[in-house]
């Protein structure tokens, strides 16, 4: 980032947090031009982080809120949003992975109060891994354990070099720790992917299964760990030779602290949660021989916080429905791709997410049919089709709060400069307050009134 045209009035923010990806690096040193309200230098940031900090500038000319595309006051937009949610029979809330835990807590409260449906981007990211976790459990760790102890690190179905550029250096490959003083020299790195991605450069061993055969390879490895025989044609069917599998199993059983990181190459392909489940089961099996852990490499900055908040408030990590006045969980029924594609939802509150650009066609078509309330820092396909849209400040850059790293470690952010635009939490608090007033006013009729309506606690 160039420092030319940086004015005199700068401040430096140390130990700031980058929330672009799930690494949530908290060692940023930001130089902020307070006059131009922009970050002119982000020391320690990766290429993604530098773009994140450089591009989130203040677009003063933009309205704080719009209704039907026309600029309006935040107050009017809040009223309109509350009316939409209050009247809906199946209002869905979605997004939240690029928002603070404080905002996420307000979003769950809204869904609880209006007896709606809440889901996060987890459902189209590592939701299947969450499902697998509920069936198998998980042997896992915080990333510092990998840095301090791991002597075998396997990346499966992910491309961290491009999606999580600092994962190697900060945590898992070259990082030096208590029992790994020589960093990469003390480790063996394995990459398993159907493509030879840039991440392969960091690996001592690269295995390339045929596309869609990850499950079969994982299953074969589990069989070998358990001392079972495999058919001779295993290479034909999977693209990985028996020798390569036996070698990997030997390394896995004989390491001191083994780690399996996995990405969406498992969760987004045929097999979905069973692919993640096979990997979690493999890590579990290996604990008969040595200490072995696994960890999904999560994407968005605070998607892990969303899992945590939704879980502690409802008991379930995503895909939660409150129609009956209490939480129910059922992926495939209460997850957003399904509630939209089936045409179930009759209103949507979308927070810091853009389903209109990356959901399946049929879901996007329904989104265009129903009233949508969108909160985002920039214009997106979703804000463009929204009936009510709010332009928000950027978490971590303009607003503080809590975010969870991919390994569930919570970090408190240090904002760099103020934004004229309100944060997600502020807007969601206002909507929560208003829908609750409307529901109390409606009294004992209409939406699930007999089961009584949740009131917000004084917080």
């Amino acid at each position: 980032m160039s420092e030319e045209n940086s004015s005199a009035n700068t401040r430096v923010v140390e130990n700031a947090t980058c929330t672009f990806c799930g690494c949530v690096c908290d060692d940023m040193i930001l130089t902020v031009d307070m006059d131009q309200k922009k970050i002119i230098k982000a020391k320690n940031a990766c290429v993604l982080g530098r773009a994140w900090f450089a591009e989130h500038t203040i677009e003063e000319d933009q309205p704080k809120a719009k209704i039907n595309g026309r600029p309006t006051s935040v107050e009017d937009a809040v009223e309109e949003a509350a009316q939409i949610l209050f009247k809906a029979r199946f209002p869905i809330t979605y997004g939240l992975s690029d928002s603070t835990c404080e905002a996420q807590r307000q979003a769950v409260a809204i869904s609880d109060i209006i007896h709606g449906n809440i889901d996060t981007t987890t459902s189209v990211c590592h939701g299947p891994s969450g499902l697998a976790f509920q069936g198998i459990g998980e042997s896992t760790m915080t990333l510092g354990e990998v840095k301090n102890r791991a002597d075998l690190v396997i990346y499966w179905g992910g491309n961290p070099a491009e999606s999580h550029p600092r994962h190697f250096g900060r945590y898992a490959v070259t990082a030096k720790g208590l029992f790994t003083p020589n960093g990469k020299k003390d480790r063996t790195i394995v990459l398993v992917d159907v493509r030879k991605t840039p991440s392969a450069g960091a690996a001592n061993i690269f295995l390339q299964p045929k596309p869609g055969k990850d499950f079969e390879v994982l299953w074969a490895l589990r069989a070998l760990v358990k001392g079972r025989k495999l058919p001779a044609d295993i290479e034909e069917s999977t693209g990985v030779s028996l020798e390569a599998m036996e070698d990997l199993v030997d390394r896995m059983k004989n390491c001191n602290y083994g780690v399996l990181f996995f990405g969406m190459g498992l969760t987004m392909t045929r097999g979905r949660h069973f692919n993640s489940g096979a990997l979690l089961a493999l890590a579990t099996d290996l604990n008969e021989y040595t200490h072995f852990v696994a960890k999904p490499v999560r994407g968005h900055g605070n998607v892990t916080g969303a899992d945590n908040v939704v879980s502690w408030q409802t008991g379930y990590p995503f895909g939660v429905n409150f129609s009956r006045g209490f939480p129910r969980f059922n992926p495939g029924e209460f997850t957003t791709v399904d509630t939209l594609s089936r045409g179930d939802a009759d209103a949507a509150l979308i927070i810091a997410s853009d389903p209109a650009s990356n959901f399946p066609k049929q879901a996007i078509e329904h989104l265009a049919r129903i009233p949508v309330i969108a909160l985002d820092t920039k214009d997106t396909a979703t804000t463009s089709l929204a009936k009510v849209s709010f332009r928000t400040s950027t978490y971590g850059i303009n607003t503080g709060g809590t975010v969870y790293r991919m390994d569930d470690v919570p970090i408190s952010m240090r904002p760099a400069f103020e934004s004229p635009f309100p944060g997600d939490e502020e807007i969601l608090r206002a909507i929560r307050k208003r829908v609750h007033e409307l529901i109390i006013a409606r009294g004992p009729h209409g939406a699930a009134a007999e089961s009584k309506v949740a009131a917000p606690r004084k917080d």
Partner: protein
Amino acid sequence: MAETMLLIPGRSSKQGTSLNKGKLKEEYLAVTSAVEIKEDDMSRLGLNEGDRVRLSNSVGETIVTCVQKKNIDLPDGVMFMAYGPCSSQLMAWDTAGSGMPLSKNIEVTIEKVSE
């Protein structure tokens, strides 16, 4: 000539950096409407860098621009593109009780668009 190939939508660092500028900005739209194809597949399909191709399946279709990759970068018959509005057009919605649509390894028919 048309042929069925496997499409893998995924993240790329260019997609990552450009989406910070804004998802309605040219750069992001360009990054997400390019498909990477290995040399051998390109020549077999008679394609050149920059050609426009139509990707289609039972769900829908999208027109994107070819980017040539080295043969070692991709297996035969496999193409890569960054997630985005274009790849959505080809994604079936059925999540099979999981919440997750199949977003990678999508079978698509590829054919050159002759302007």
